[in-house]
């Protein structure tokens, strides 16, 4: 896979354009506004469909839950998106226009998401929306984005099985996240038997479906148990006993939300200690955000498979973490989804500049192939199927709540939302 090792170089916009090529990461984070190098194109040329674009501004939407149960998870995404927008503005904006954002609250309620997205697209005529977190909220707004031709940048790792012309998926789809993780753990720990456990909704179930097929058909292993718990469930002692009984080599966990805290604390308390050799757990749902609640000491030693960890050691990430903490406080942590949310505005900017227009159709057309060399996770590129080419990494949870990256795929993983043989 051709990828740029030249991380400090800034944006590479489809070769035809050369707008921001010289902007370094350091400059990107500075607070002094910088004027775009090119002349500002006329509004009539860059906006032919009546979007909220003026000579000086362009309006986008941010749509996450800031109240209700999902606020816990979505808070980081909002922060990252705002940070990205502020940084872009500081660099001179997009096509010479400052980004203004309208923030709406999805209130952890899928119909509210649908309602607010309709408002953003029809009343506010936003040029793009950065938002949604759960699959359910995305499914709720999807028909609306398709009907009113909006553009959604969706940050969460998710189950795949979807490919909408109106969504750019900046998180990983299930196969990207899961397959490399399983391959690695199977090699590294010679794992043969797996116990799958998840919260009871579509993402864990689909993930486990893919995991099971991969384990049974490609790794020659076996699945010795598969369990689901209602969202918010807090007593896991029974399943922990089952795990003890089955003695799997690896527990593969996709428990989410508040249940996570209960699950890992009870595991630790039950003596299944991940920091010791005899018990291995691979999770696809715990990021640095979740560890805040779980407590580093309770999950120390667990492995997580995803594309980004706050501890990634590269210049882009150093700058990103520094800027994030400056903006949102020293104690802020950054998880996989937060980083993916951060990519949204940058990818949109790149696509708009590649297209030379805010028109959604043109942005969509220009999107495949748009690449970002300044991404904190390294290099990403938009695939024809609107997902991102990205690397998958394995992190080992540390006591301080961070992950130590122990493995990284050599190549970018190709996104494959409809994986043949895994359905």
């Amino acid at each position, binding site marked *: 896979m051709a990828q740029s090792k030249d991380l400090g170089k800034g944006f590479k916009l489809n070769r035809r354009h050369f707008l921001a090529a010289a902007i370094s990461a350091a400059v990107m984070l500075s607070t002094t506004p910088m004027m775009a190098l090119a002349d500002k194109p006329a509004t009539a040329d860059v906006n032919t469909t009546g979007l909220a674009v003026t000579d000086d501004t362009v309006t986008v939407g941010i749509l996450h839950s*800031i*109240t*209700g*149960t999902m*606020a*816990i998870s979505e*808070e980081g995404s909002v922060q990252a998106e705002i940070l990205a927008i502020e940084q872009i503005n500081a660099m001179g904006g997009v096509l010479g226009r400052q980004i203004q954002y309208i923030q709406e609250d999805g209130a952890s309620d899928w119909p509210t998401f649908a309602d607010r997205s309709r408002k953003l697209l029809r009343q506010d005529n936003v040029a793009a929306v950065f938002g949604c977190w759960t699959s359910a909220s995305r499914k709720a707004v999807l028909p609306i984005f398709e009907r009113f031709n909006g553009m959604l940048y969706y940050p969460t790792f998710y189950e795949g099985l979807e490919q909408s012309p109106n969504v750019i998926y900046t998180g990983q789809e299930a196969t990207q996240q899961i397959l490399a993780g399983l391959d690695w753990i199977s090699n590294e720990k010679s794992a043969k038997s797996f116990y799958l456990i998840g919260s*009871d909704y579509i993402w864990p179930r689909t993930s486990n479906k893919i995991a099971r097929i991969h384990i049974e058909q490609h790794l020659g292993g076996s699945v010795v148990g598969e*369990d*689901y*718990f*209602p969202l*918010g*469930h*807090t*007593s896991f*002692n*029974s*399943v*922990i*006993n*089952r795990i*003890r*009984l089955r003695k799997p080599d690896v527990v593969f966990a996709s428990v989410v*939300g*508040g*249940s*996570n*805290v*209960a699950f890992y*604390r*009870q595991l*630790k*308390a*039950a*003596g299944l*200690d991940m920091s010791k050799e005899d018990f291995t757990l691979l999770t696809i749902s715990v990021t640095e*955000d979740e*560890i*805040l*609640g*779980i*407590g*580093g*000491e*309770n999950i120390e030693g667990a492995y997580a498979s995803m594309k980004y960890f706050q501890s990634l050691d590269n210049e882009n990430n150093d700058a990103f973490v520094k800027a994030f903490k400056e903006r949102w406080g020293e104690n802020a942590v950054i998880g996989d989804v937060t980083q993916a949310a951060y990519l949204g505005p940058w990818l949109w900017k790149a696509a708009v500049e590649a297209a030379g227009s805010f028109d959604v159709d043109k942005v969509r057309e220009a999107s495949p192939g748009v690449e970002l060399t300044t991404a904190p996770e390294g290099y990403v590129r938009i695939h024809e199927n609107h997902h991102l080419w990205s690397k998958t990494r394995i992190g080992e949870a540390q006591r301080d709540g961070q992950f130590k990256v122990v493995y990284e795929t050599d190549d970018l993983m190709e996104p494959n939302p409809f994986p043949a043989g895994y359905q």
Partner: protein
Amino acid sequence: MFSDFSTAELMAIFAMQGFAGLILFAVFILMALGLAIIFGQMGVINMAHGEFMILGAYVTYLTSTLFSTHAPDLFGAYFFFAIVFAFFAAALLGALVEWSMIRFLYHRPLDTLLATWGLSLILQQAYRSIFGAREVGVVIPDWLMGSYQLTDMIEVPINGIFVMCLALAATVFVITLMYRSRWGMQVRAVVQNRQMAGAVGINSAKVDRMTFALGCGIAGVAGSAFTMIGSTGPSSGQLYIVDTFLVVVFGGAGSLLGTVASAFSISQSQSILEFFMGGSMAKVLTLLIVVMILMFRPQGLFSLKVRR
């Protein structure tokens, strides 16, 4: 499904499974005890019960940070202080709530439900504004983590034992208070005949306030204990409310013994079913059985047959 395992393994598992059921039992007891007092004795439906528990959890969190910054040497013991603080914080808030709204609603039990629901929304948002939307991690002292090796195969989690002891202590405390103390006698007198109790010189308004505060205080203790096993976030309290009410109603309102018995049967059946069929279906089945039984025996497991 057991054919692959040796008898010894099975015995060990059953022992641990029984223990898991007991931990859940203790959790239910702690959740339901406060509500049993408030609902059973006063007839008030406190939908904000879960939020009072979360208050206890946040107080525990604050105490832990306080100890780790100002008295790291005593960190191992902070939990005991936290429990006491949690009790008083929740009780104080409870007394305030009783004074400002509940006392106007004693004759309208269904309206207490709506008003306290409103209260729960306010508390949730208050927690979110004060502590942030993210869950807070409460650091548990080392001695409470890990497990105790009973035999080669049987390990029991120490925090589980702790929660059980706490539940036992709380139950004994409440029962002693209600049935052995002069104050408890006053409470029961007010429950049975408010006017009469007033006539013999019991300050029923004060008794009401104290009863409500006691119930909330115990909720605070429960929340404090839950930091060891569950999560502490602004809306975590919501998760418990349905279960808690079912435990109390199933036990028979007004009967503390019933609450204990109902917590025991619900926790055991849930724990056993979970072992065989996974969490979601176990939960559905348990709730369904309880609702079915309640339909046939609306008064709950324990209730006195009284002359009307």
